[in-house]
């Protein structure tokens, strides 16, 4: 009995640990090894040479990295801010509706589950210069058509708009669950005490929602850093580097320039940056929950 118990206990955790060790821990260690190497593929194998300084020099000489970092930060801040504002507004709005909540929730799940690649190709059609829905609308209004994805000033905002369309529903679902769970007696008491509607929102509802807001914010921020699929489809980073994001650049370094060593160095830098955000953000959650 005790023996069976103990063996079950051990092997039940083994597959997960093994999988994680082989497919995440080992590659992470390998990433460090790759980051100080130059890897060249020869016939039948690969040649590794130890060249830590060369990779650092490549990083310093890489003119795409500064705009990619700037664009990524701009993308994350702009998209997440808009998504949080719209998601919160929508959650409060829907909470006041008496019928049709199920329908709204169903519709809102759709963008989250659709393949991001399909979202990219859909929006590429919507943004099409000649017959996309936006330019048709502009022309119908007597305005000149816009080059949504091809103009350096507009492309980033077109990409942000797609991300907003994709992820507002996610923020909505989290905040809506929290809004629906607000303690009714507290809201009731505030109203009986004569709180006006703006006061109720600012002094009672928003403070009560703060933990959920922080969680949604943290999740969205982290996911926004990971964005790749839609942007790859929509612009591939162009025109020029105006929508180049760090993940897109990483893909190009790895698989278009075949710089596996330098790509590994870039990956490590990105992981370090995200861990830093995570630590600061985690602190924020702890403060908000306390």
């Amino acid at each position, binding site marked *: 009995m005790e023996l069976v118990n103990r063996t079950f206990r051990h092997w039940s955790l083994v597959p997960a640990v093994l999988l994680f060790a082989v497919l995440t821990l080992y590659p992470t260690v390998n990433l460090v090894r790759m980051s100080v190497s130059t890897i060249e593929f020869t016939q039948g194998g690969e040649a590794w040479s130890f060249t830590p300084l060369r990779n650092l020099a490549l990083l310093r000489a890489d003119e795409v990295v500064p705009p990619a970092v700037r664009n990524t930060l701009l993308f994350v801040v702009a998209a997440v801010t808009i998504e949080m504002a719209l998601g919160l507004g929508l959650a409060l709005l829907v909470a006041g509706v008496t019928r049709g909540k199920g329908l709204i929730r169903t519709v809102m799940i759709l963008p989250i589950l659709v393949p991001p690649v*399909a979202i990219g190709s859909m929006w590429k059609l919507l943004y099409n210069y000649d017959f996309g*829905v936006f330019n048709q609308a502009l022309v119908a209004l007597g305005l000149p058509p816009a080059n949504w994805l091809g103009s350096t000033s507009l492309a980033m905002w077109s990409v942000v708009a797609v991300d907003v369309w994709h992820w507002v529903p996610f923020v909505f679902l989290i905040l809506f669950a929290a809004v629906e769970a607000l303690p009714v007696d507290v809201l009731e008491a505030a109203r009986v005490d004569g709180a006006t509607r703006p006061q109720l929102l600012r002094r009672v509802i928003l403070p009560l929602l703060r933990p959920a807001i922080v969680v949604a914010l943290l999740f969205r921020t982290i996911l926004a850093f990971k964005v790749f699929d839609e942007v790859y489809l929509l612009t591939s980073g162009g025109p020029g580097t105006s929508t180049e994001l760090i993940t897109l650049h990483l893909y190009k370094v790895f698989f278009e320039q075949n710089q596996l060593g330098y790509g590994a160095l870039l990956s490590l830098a990105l992981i370090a940056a995200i861990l830093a955000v995570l630590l600061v953000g985690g602190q924020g959650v702890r403060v908000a929950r306390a």
Partner: protein
Amino acid sequence: MSEVAVDAVEVPRRAAAAFTPAHRGVLGAALLVLALAAVLGPFAWILTTSFKYQIAIYSGEWPFTPTLANYADVLFGRRSDFVANVTNSLVVASASTAIVLVVATLAAYSLHRFRWPRWVTGALLGWTLVFHMIPVMTLIGPWYVAFRALGLYDTRMALILTHVTINLPMTLWLMRAFFAEVPPEIEEAALVDGCRPLQAFRRVTLPLVVPGLIASGILAFIFSWNEFPIALSLTSRELATVPVAIARFAQQYETQHGQMAAASIIATLPAVLLMALGQRFIVRGLTLGAVK
């Protein structure tokens, strides 16, 4: 916080009263309709585009003569491997979902039921969390090197293994949340009655977390079906999955808009189908996953 969010699923209408008066007006309703239209509009536009001949797309004529030519071309056209792509996606998504469910359920049960030292639990859960936060692109380089060395580059096995890996954190955390809701007394009673531990798990506890298995299974399947960067980097033309095919399509035949729309719609179908079947479970999974 976590209990609060779970409650919300069971007690949907509780707080509505506090909000109602503000939005009884036309404005609230109008804004809501606008929000729904904003979400559904793009789908509707693409759906109609997918049934149009190229000429109707350019002229924007309405009403238009509907056609299935785009779908036929995407699925069975001479230049299309779409049937093979769908097969690849189905195989990879099904296999990786089955494996991740087994692995994650066992691990979640193990962490929940057996008294592992704190550092074991902490290290495993912490690492899954960190891994989940890192852009997968950072690990594709080392995966590429490793799979080439093992002769697994450009095989379905490589995709299945990596998809299991990226879905493991979410599935593990979800199943852990569902196991946490099973009262330990139930299993203890079974053990007292002479069940062996494995039997107690299989016959008593596992049936109680079936909703969790459905939720995680649907989400894992969809995320594997949707996954793009890994499939793009670790497969060649023959083993391309649906997202990779769509991306290639969008780049090579940029002017075939009707076909692009049709391909997007086809790629969306599994998500819509699974959502229709398991909506309740999915909402629970998505919000649980985010809150816990």
